[in-house]
């Protein structure tokens, strides 16, 4: 759905996006992570043909950027960083305007469909300005979907929302993913990216890395298993360390933290050894690094 090659955008002497090359496949939820000012919004604007690249090429929905900009805009939906609704017009009229501009055939039907789907039907005649932030965001999502775009750009969809509204928006993104839509998600919320995205690109003017959340963790951190024991001492840790497949073992209170390449293969052997030397194993679990750890490592390195 998206292919870019050395896509670059400079504003005067400042380069906002530098030689961005990546691909987003159909039906994928692609997370685009980066600190403030990294160039995420500029990338979205480039890919939605709102601004022109300084160099490089891109194809969006099969259309060449710069040659078929109108077709790109016709076939993508965009949720901008701020909802940007017409505050003194009704929710329904706001959507009718955009349905008309997106050349939607059944304007009435599509407007009703999304107002109902996002729980705004009862408030359809109210001015958008009277809506809460969460409701405005939902209205903006409805606007982005009116023309049933196969590719959706969501720029910080849950920023500035309370937890409940953010949860509703995330659930809706989950539903869109199930419908098979391709989603390009810019977010600061790493937990959100972890839960929703098939792949993640970490970006700071340049693309730092791109992979699945699980692979990113594996690339940066060795796998560790925590054995919770009733009583642990250093003797147990030394015993475990002596095993050939164990890379490292540390005792933390009543826990043994063991670094392994293949926990699925070696955990049973460790448990057998621990039980054999009299330890009481209460619980075994993998120590999972949060995406935040991954992100901070990557951005720091960049």
């Amino acid at each position: 759905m998206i292919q870019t090659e050395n896509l670059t955008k400079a504003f005067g002497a400042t380069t906002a996006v530098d030689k961005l090359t990546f691909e987003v496949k159909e039906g994928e939820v692609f997370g685009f992570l980066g600190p403030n000012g990294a160039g995420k919004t500029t990338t979205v604007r480039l890919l939605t043909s709102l601004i022109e690249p300084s160099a490089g090429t891109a194809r969006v929905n099969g259309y060449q950027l710069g040659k078929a900009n109108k077709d790109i805009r016709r076939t993508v939906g965009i949720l901008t960083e701020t909802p940007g609704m017409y505050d003194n017009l009704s929710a329904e009229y706001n959507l009718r305007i955009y349905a008309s501009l997106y050349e939607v055939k059944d304007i009435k039907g599509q407007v009703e469909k999304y107002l109902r789907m996002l729980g705004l039907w009862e408030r359809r005649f109210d001015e958008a300005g009277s809506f809460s932030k969460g409701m405005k965001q939902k209205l903006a999502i409805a606007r982005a979907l009116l023309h049933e775009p196969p590719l959706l750009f969501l720029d910080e969809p849950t920023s500035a929302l309370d937890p409940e509204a953010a949860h509703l928006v995330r659930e809706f993104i989950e539903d869109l993913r199930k419908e098979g839509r391709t989603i390009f998600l810019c977010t600061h919320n790493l937990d959100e990216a972890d839960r929703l995205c098939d792949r993640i690109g970490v970006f700071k003017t340049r693309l730092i890395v791109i992979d699945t959340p699980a692979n990113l963790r594996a690339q940066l951190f060795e796998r560790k298993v925590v054995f919770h024991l009733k009583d642990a001492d250093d003797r147990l840790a030394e015993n475990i360390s002596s095993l050939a497949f164990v890379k490292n073992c540390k005792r933390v209170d009543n826990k043994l933290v063991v670094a392994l390449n293949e926990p699925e293969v070696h955990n049973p052997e460790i448990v057998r050894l621990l039980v054999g030397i009299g330890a009481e194993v209460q619980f075994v679990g993998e120590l999972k690094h949060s995406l935040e750890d991954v992100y901070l490592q990557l951005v720091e390195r960049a």
Partner: protein
Amino acid sequence: MEKIKTIVLKEWAEVFKNRLVLSTVIFMPLLFAIIPLIMLYLTRSTSMNDLTSDMPSQIMQLCPEGVALGECFQVFMAGQMMLLFMLSPLIIPVNIAAYSIVGEKTTRSLEPLLATPITTAELLIGKNLAAVIPAVVATWFGFFIYVIGAAIIVKSPYVIASLLDPKWWLAIGIIGPLLAVLSVNFSLMVSSRVNDPRVAEQLSVVVILPILAIFFGQMFGVLLINRQLVLAFAAIVLLIDLGLVFLSIRLFQRETILTRWK
């Protein structure tokens, strides 16, 4: 065409919720119709015919043989007041365009709008029409009231004939819309550089200066409005319009708007 219509209707729905803009569109042409009618009413009395030949030359020029000086004075006053109808197509669109563009900036609604398949030309035509149509309709409506009112108040066939002179139909019918286009595009350019509608309005008001120049030029006898002058003025405004439309399209670049409008 459908997209232009959508933009026009959207602009009207939004802008006319602003009471200041709405009152400008309604009351300004009414005021500009009533003021000259009052002037005609006050100068209709027969005592005006006792005016002497000490009248200024610019009034005497309007006085053919056999026409009373009072009537000539009325014709002169009517000509001066007619210029008011060329001010309203300048002032009304300033209000509409300033709110329309600066409003888009303050609500940050322009980015989603530009992300639709609408072309820059469609968007600009829509915004132009949304500001020009009410201004022209309101001006013509005011002029219509003025002509009807004058026909009731004024008794002199000479004064009536001068009010219905083709130069005024040309001025109101052609120059009016051209001035409205000038005003809108000037406001578009000013609005793209400021963040407050009031500042946009204040800066845009400079477009009324040429009309004021004609007003005072005629008052002090420097020039006399006739068909040649009206035609020349129409041609000049048309040229200025073409230049302003070209400039406003050049300045209304999506990238500039999105990255520099703060």
